[in-house]
């Protein structure tokens, strides 16, 4: 790997603003948060995947993958970031390197021609060029090609140097953030910068979640100036340095970018979440408070409080109708992220019982919050191998599994209702209206009459009375982590 990239990665992995990192001792801090992967027992995407996830939602950019077919051929058109404008981002562009290109050392030339062709055909706002394992291994200098292309073709061409083998998706997110800071942010100026302009970092507008929150911001007169990167235009990224406050949504990976914006341009940031009622309210409150601190009109705060009061009341009223259908049901939570506590507390409020939750990616602070919400730590577990989880579900010790896509089939094959709460889900659950959507999904899934039919015996099976399920005790610490966030 090129020395420069190595140094950059070392820097990125030592993020001073990250609590998890600060809590580590000197030795493990230097190792960064990479972990050695186990051959035959690894799951999850590569750095290229992570970089693409973070940047692809920029809708008017042509995302060009410099690679043989696999990286883009198997990976394009597979995520649900919604756009209200250009559709260029959904088109899969790749140099589709062939054996001949590689043997002849034609990679850089082919890349340059591909950049020229994509600009001529699509006139995108910019071209993002992604390095991958093979193009990095053969030593293609994408930074030099991008620089030359920008100068000669007059369209910004941005190198995203995150070849897959350097690490995980999470590292790819970071490298993507670093590329934006180095090459894009600060290159354009807004016509009318305002005192209520904000950045939202880390929301990718999956299934339109950003739009579930935007009406709230609209009503408060808050404008999303910089978006990284849900439903973003290239210009919105280029102008992000003029925002007054940054909200970092559910993303430790992009914290470095938020901090750089703070250090470089004096834009304060805070971490918040739009999942759950209390977290949504808290995020709005903090946002308004910070804007006012930076000179926005002081009446923003009372207006915000009025909005929250009104929305919360309306939401609880709507949720109450679900109570008879969900109360007493047992939920098993298996997610990567830990921004869902606000959701959990709302479920409990509606009478549901959380019988277990994974803490495999949680910080100590997160774990503290589990204890706070669930009373003790007996419901926490680390990883669970699919077979283990299948057995647990098969014994009907939970009424519904809420998890990401990887455990989907574990639940379904065990004939247990499943609600998708990870990034690839197809329904938006953000903000107040998202919480109602989530409850609707849980209700619809859990109370589907199909489950009883499927669990019943076939005509040729003798109907035996199933023994009462044993009380839930979760084994913890299985090495095979298969739910990657």
């Amino acid at each position, binding site marked *: 790997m090129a020395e420069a990239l190595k140094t950059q990665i070392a820097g990125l992995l030592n993020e001073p603003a990250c609590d998890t990192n600060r809590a580590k001792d000197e030795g493990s801090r230097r190792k960064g948060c990479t972990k050695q992967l186990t051959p*035959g027992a690894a799951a999850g995407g590569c*750095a290229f995947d992570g970089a693409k996830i973070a940047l692809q939602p920029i809708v008017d950019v042509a995302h060009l993958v410099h690679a043989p077919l*696999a990286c883009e051929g*198997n990976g394009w058109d597979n995520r649900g970031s919604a756009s209200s404008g250009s559709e260029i981002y959904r*088109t899969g562009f790749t140099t589709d390197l062939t054996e001949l290109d590689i043997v002849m050392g034609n990679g850089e030339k082919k890349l340059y021609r591909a950049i020229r062709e994509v600009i001529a055909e699509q006139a995108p706002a910019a071209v993002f060029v992604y390095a991958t394992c*093979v193009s990095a*291994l053969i030593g293609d200098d994408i930074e030099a090609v991008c620089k030359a292309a920008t100068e000669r073709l007059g369209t910004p061409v941005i190198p995203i140097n995150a070849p*897959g083998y350097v690490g995980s998706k999470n590292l790819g997110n970071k490298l993507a953030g670093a590329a934006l800071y180095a090459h894009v942010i600060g290159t354009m100026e807004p016509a009318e910068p305002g005192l209520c302009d904000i950045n939202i970092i880390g929301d990718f507008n999956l299934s339109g979640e950003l739009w579930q929150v935007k009406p709230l911001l609209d009503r408060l007169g808050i404008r999303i100036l910089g978006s990284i990167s849900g439903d973003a235009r290239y210009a919105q990224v280029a102008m992000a340095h003029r925002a007054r406050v940054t909200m970092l949504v559910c993303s430790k990976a992009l914290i470095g970018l938020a901090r750089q914006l703070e250090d470089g341009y004096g834009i304060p940031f805070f971490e918040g979440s739009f999942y759950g009622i209390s977290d949504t309210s808290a995020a709005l409150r903090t946002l308004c408070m910070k804007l006012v601190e930076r000179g926005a009109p002081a009446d923003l705060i009372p207006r915000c409080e009025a909005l929250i009061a009104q929305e919360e009341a309306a939401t609880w009223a709507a949720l109450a109708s679900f109570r008879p259908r969900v109360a007493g049901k047992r939920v098993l939570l298996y997610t990567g992220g830990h921004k869902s506590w606000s959701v959990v507390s709302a479920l409990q409020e509606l009478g549901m019982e959380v019988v277990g939750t994974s803490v495999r990616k949680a910080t100590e602070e997160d774990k503290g919050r589990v204890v706070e919400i669930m009373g003790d730590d007996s419901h926490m577990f680390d990883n669970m191998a699919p077979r283990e989880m*299948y057995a647990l579900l098969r014994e009907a010790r939970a009424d519904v599994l809420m998890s990401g896509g990887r455990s989907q089939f574990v639940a379904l094959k065990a004939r247990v209702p499943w609600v998708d709460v990870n990034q690839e889900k197809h329904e938006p659950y953000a903000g107040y209206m998202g919480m109602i959507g989530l409850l609707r999904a849980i209700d619809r899934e859990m109370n589907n009459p199909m489950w009883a039919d499927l669990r019943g015996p076939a005509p040729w099976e003798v109907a035996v009375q199933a023994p009462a399920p044993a009380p839930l005790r979760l084994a913890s610490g299985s090495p*095979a982590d298969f739910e990657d966030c």
Partner: protein
Amino acid sequence: MAHLVHPQRALSTNPLKTSAPLGAAMAYLGIEGAIPLFHGAQGCTAFAMVHLVRHFRESIPLQTTAMNEVSAILGGGEQIEEAIENLRKRAKPKFIGIASTALVETRGEDVAGELREMLARRADFAGTAVVYAATPDFAGGLEDGWARAVEAIIAALVPAQAGPKIAGQVNLLAGSHLTPAEVEAVADMVRGFGLTPIVLPDLSTSLDGHLSDDWSGTSLGGTRLAEIARMGQSIATLAIGTAMRPAAEALANRGVPPQVFASLTGLKAVDAFVTALMQLSGRDAPATIKRDRARLADACLDAHFQIGGLRVALGADPDLGFALGTALTALGAEIVTAVTTSGLNPIAADIPAAEVILGDLGDLERGAATAKAHLILTHAHGRMAAERLHLPHVRAGFPVFDRLGAQDQCRVGYAGTRAFYYEIANAVLAHPHRPRPEDFGATPVAQEFDHASPPPSTH
């Protein structure tokens, strides 16, 4: 014979091709108790797995040797050994099928040699059959990767010295273009003649989508290893798809006479297969097959009104493109644009079109627009092109992630061909063309005659 066009350009827009390692993995999933293993960086595996899961809607036990920056430079032999060790511990597979990726092949590692040495050393791995296929992403596509995997299985697991012939036993080599339902349909046809097929690979029992009684960390069914070991004792090999010819020849070297069927879709294609089965078995065709043929003949009569003259834009791997393309032209359709993925299979040049582009969905979209196609026939990624061109889109190939039951589509045999003709005809009927005066060069009715009030709401 079509003219094969290699577009001269650097940019590929909206890939049609799926990578070769993924094809190999899919083939491996048709072996009982299998775990496919990618030799490369973990990201490739994650993408391929998501791809397979979206298509089959099943959990897919795909694993990776997880090459990192160090092993990418120094070589990854140890990673394979460690991976096999871990997989054996965790999931006890009967079979591990390794597919290499571009990363490994760019370095030019001698993986096969290292693997041989390692397996000789590790006697404790004996309970798991390990097979390796070289499938760099930069050469060929899904169909080629699948074929290389089947060849690797035969090379490793079918003894060179076969035992005595087993009466009535035939090898059925299933091409990558066959869905699980199609594999089953073909095997049933063979059984209908009193023959016993060994199907390799057999997705019809592993990826057919069934709810079983336990959780498994390996494939849920597929060809049994004991059956594979007996393939040299068959009286014939029936290979479906031209891409399977090298595999059939490998079995020929073990004394089994091969027959390759380029297609099993269309009256003539199925006739050829049935004739071969009659000869092999010495039996007349069973009544069900005769009835299916009569019903297909009738379906041709009904559907040729829609399909005759239909202008089709076709994008598929060579074997699938040939099978579906010839079935449609047999009813008078015209393939006005044909795009395929790989020139390694000679059948690519026989796809019934004036020219066949080795290209992407960008080519298909452009071609369909210029040639004024009536219908797009390609996999699910063609949906955006179809939307933009306002054309009906029939999904065929891999992946089909935006429709349920991709594994149940059956377009082979007499009955499957009938279903395919109805499917195409119905797609045409669902997009009725309403004539407008402009179509004929006539001026529209003058606006002053139009009723002035706003049109009534449609809701």
